[in-house]
């Protein structure tokens, strides 16, 4: 019996120590960039455009919230999945558009305040969010039920925390650039949000009109990427001159 006890203790210790090695370290922030300098408004350029959808418009699937009455009660009719939303004007909602390459290596002005992520009616709001690396994200649970917030980053540290009904706000950051990070709630498996974490302020999320505007870019040559959770990513090269406003459209096929 003693022999078995010792063997078990050793095996458990080995398993535990091995598993400890799996835990990801908190990524260290990148080396500090040159000091913040205001964008030269006189020469700043703008890129705007739209994300079009072509092909058969996919049906938006109903979400069944029957397993959690507190969630079901929040909706008169079953809510729809927000994975693919084609707007009335044929554009695509919830596409993350950002300047992937070409942005000068400098420290950009800090964001004005924390980004907001709410859990309301057992749906993450907004469905897609763009933040700056290191920016505070205030996470709220406005529902009368428990949620767990579980981002699934590849570059930043993964975490999983519960948030009780109408509990205190959580404030989190992702220190490294990463496009995109899925955020799940395992209590309610239909809940999903996407967070794009970018080192600079040149990003946008398409909304009800499917358009985007990226302002304040220094003149230069850039790679612009549009990312959609269902249809993947598309890139275009774009060159903007001083004060120039350039239109760039993307198209995803269904």
């Amino acid at each position: 019996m003693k022999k078995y006890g010792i063997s078990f203790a050793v095996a458990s210790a080995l398993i535990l120590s091995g598993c400890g090695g799996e835990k990801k370290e908190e990524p260290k922030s990148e080396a500090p960039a040159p000091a913040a300098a205001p964008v030269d408004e006189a020469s700043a350029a703008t890129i705007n455009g739209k994300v079009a959808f072509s092909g058969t418009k996919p049906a938006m699937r109903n979400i069944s919230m029957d397993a959690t009455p507190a969630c079901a009660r929040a909706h008169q009719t079953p809510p729809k999945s927000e994975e693919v939303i084609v707007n009335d004007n044929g554009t695509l909602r919830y596409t993350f558009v950002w300047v992937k390459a070409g942005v000068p290596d400098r420290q950009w002005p800090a964001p004005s305040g924390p980004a907001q992520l709410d859990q309301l009616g057992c749906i993450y709001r907004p469905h897609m969010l763009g933040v700056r690396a290191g920016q505070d994200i205030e996470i709220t649970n406005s529902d009368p039920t428990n949620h767990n917030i579980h981002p699934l980053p590849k570059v930043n540290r993964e975490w999983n925390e519960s948030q009780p009904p109408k509990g205190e706000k959580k404030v989190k950051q992702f220190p490294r650039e990463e496009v995109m990070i899925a955020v799940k709630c395992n209590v309610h498996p239909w809940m999903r949000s996407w967070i794009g974490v970018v080192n600079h302020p040149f990003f946008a999320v398409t909304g009800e009109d499917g358009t985007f505007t990226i302002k304040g870019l220094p003149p230069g040559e850039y790679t612009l990427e549009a990312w959609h959770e269902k249809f993947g990513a598309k890139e275009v090269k774009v060159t903007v001159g001083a004060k120039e406003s350039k239109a760039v459209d993307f198209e995803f096929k269904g």
Partner: protein
Amino acid sequence: MNHPWLHRYALLLAACTLFLVVAGALVTSNDAGLSVPDWPLSYGKLMPEMEGGIFWEHGHRMVATTVGLLTIGLAIWIARVERRRWMKQLAWTALAAVVAQGLLGGMTVLFLLPKPVSISHACHAQLFFSTTVAIALFTSAAWRRGGRAVEDSGLHGLAIAVAASVFLQLALGAAARHQALGVLPHVLGAVLATGMVLWLVVRVLIRHADHDQLRKPALALLAIVVAQVFLGIGAYMSRIATLDAPQPMPVMVAFTVAHVAVGALTLAVSILLAIQIFRYVRRPEAELVAQSVTA
């Protein structure tokens, strides 16, 4: 000495363990593995509000606790009444295994489903279930009665190879389920394991159809494997058909959980058949003599 109530208790433990495998499969299929971020408590409580994914995850923990307590009871009971030393050792090993399984389960939660730990948790569950089935067999009156021995050459090695191929197949399934591997190795493993099982079953049925202790588990294994192949196809097709769904769909969950549970049965019965073969099948005299001469 027979202990019919000990045998019934062992059967109860085996049944509860199969239910535990089902409960665990429901957690994974409902994507609820991390719906309770803390362990060993759930939301800091012994009994959280059972809603959504918490129902599956905390329910799994409750069934696991029951199985753990039943295993403690079994180990103590066997230690008190059994004369067979190896049975006592097996019972204590089962207890150590269920504790280790609990720790693995806790680590999957605390370390956010690391693939090696999650796959080990899944595979270990199957092995523990097979252990409880073996204990039920060893405590049965039929085991104590014994039976006649028969001669056969090469059946022992084949029986071990079959059990090993089934376990490998379960491990590949767990790896696919936890996204460490694609589904292709599991499909290829299914071909291998099914072929191995058919080879063993056909051989047992052709040569030892009149031997109850061999024929019955062989037929059971055949029936289970046929069901398992269809369940596997169902699980795959239902997963493909519901890929676009915003949440795990009941049809996919049902097929997948049944596939996991019948997989556990496949391993248990293949091990049970191997045990019976080792007990009742002797290698032919001539082969043994030749072997000793060579030695």
